[in-house]
């Protein structure tokens, strides 16, 4: 079983990212469970969401406290909160950032990857620099880095789920995949 936690901000579609990932993984026969933080979401305020992946029925309905990996959709959060809380040793921290992994000061027991999803998104006309829509791009990176599923499956899942500018979203995901 793999458990991943997403960090983002209200209004950034963090849940959509985990949902798309779940769709893609389910297409390949996995069992998945994706859920948002259970609370009040306000645009701009820090939010989290989760995904559990397994090759058999997932019975555990309790919350995820010790994820295998974390994904940070909004880079500013790295300063604001402790994104490594509960993260398992050896887990990946995948950050949407234009910085290099080494620029982040995380304990060595974690692996760090960065992807400039914002840049990719904006270039693909997904939102503006102030409010980029990065959720599809970031899934491309996750799938690649964690080796979760084939790119094609992810792109198909994006095609199913996204009704506004599906192609641009797919392109963004592909670019992120390729850059990761």
């Amino acid at each position, binding site marked *: 079983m793999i458990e991943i936690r997403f960090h983002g*901000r209200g209004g950034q579609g963090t849940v959509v990212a985990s949902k798309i990932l779940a769709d893609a993984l389910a297409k390949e026969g996995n069992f998945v469970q994706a859920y948002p933080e259970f609370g009040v979401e306000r645009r*701009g*305020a*820090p939010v989290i969401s989760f995904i559990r992946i397994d090759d058999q029925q997932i019975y555990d309905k309790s919350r995820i406290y010790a994820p295998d990996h974390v994904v940070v959709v909004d880079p*500013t959060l790295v*300063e604001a909160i402790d994104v490594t809380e509960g993260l398992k040793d050896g887990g990946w921290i995948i950050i949407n950032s234009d910085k290099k992994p080494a620029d982040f000061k995380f304990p060595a027991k974690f692996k760090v990857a960065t992807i400039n999803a914002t840049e990719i998104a904006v270039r693909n006309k997904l939102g503006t620099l*102030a*409010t980029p829509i990065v959720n599809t791009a970031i899934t491309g990176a996750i799938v690649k880095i964690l080796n979760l599923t084939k790119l094609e499956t992810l792109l198909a899942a994006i095609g199913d789920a996204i009704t506004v500018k599906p192609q641009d979203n797919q392109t963004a995901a592909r670019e992120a995949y390729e850059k990761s």
Partner: protein
Amino acid sequence: MKPKKEIKKIVFQSAEDMPTMPMSIGNMLWNKTGSWRNIRPEIRLEDCIQCGICWKFCPDMSIEIEAEWPVVNYDYCKGCGICAEECPAKCIVMVEERK
């Protein structure tokens, strides 16, 4: 900026410490909503005409008056941009928050 009564978030360690009724015993100032912001208002006081409109329309009580001039309280300003939009002197600009 005038000193704000700094209030910590109250976290109870036991049921006994809690009030019987579901009832507030502290305020929300621990919740620094400045962290929600992705754009921040900056006031160019040189152009300010002291009209008080930014203060009047800030939904988050984050324009404070200091010695007759408007000052943004970044601890709480959520970055809505209303002050900039409404300033008749157009002397408030919204700039991108930390990149």
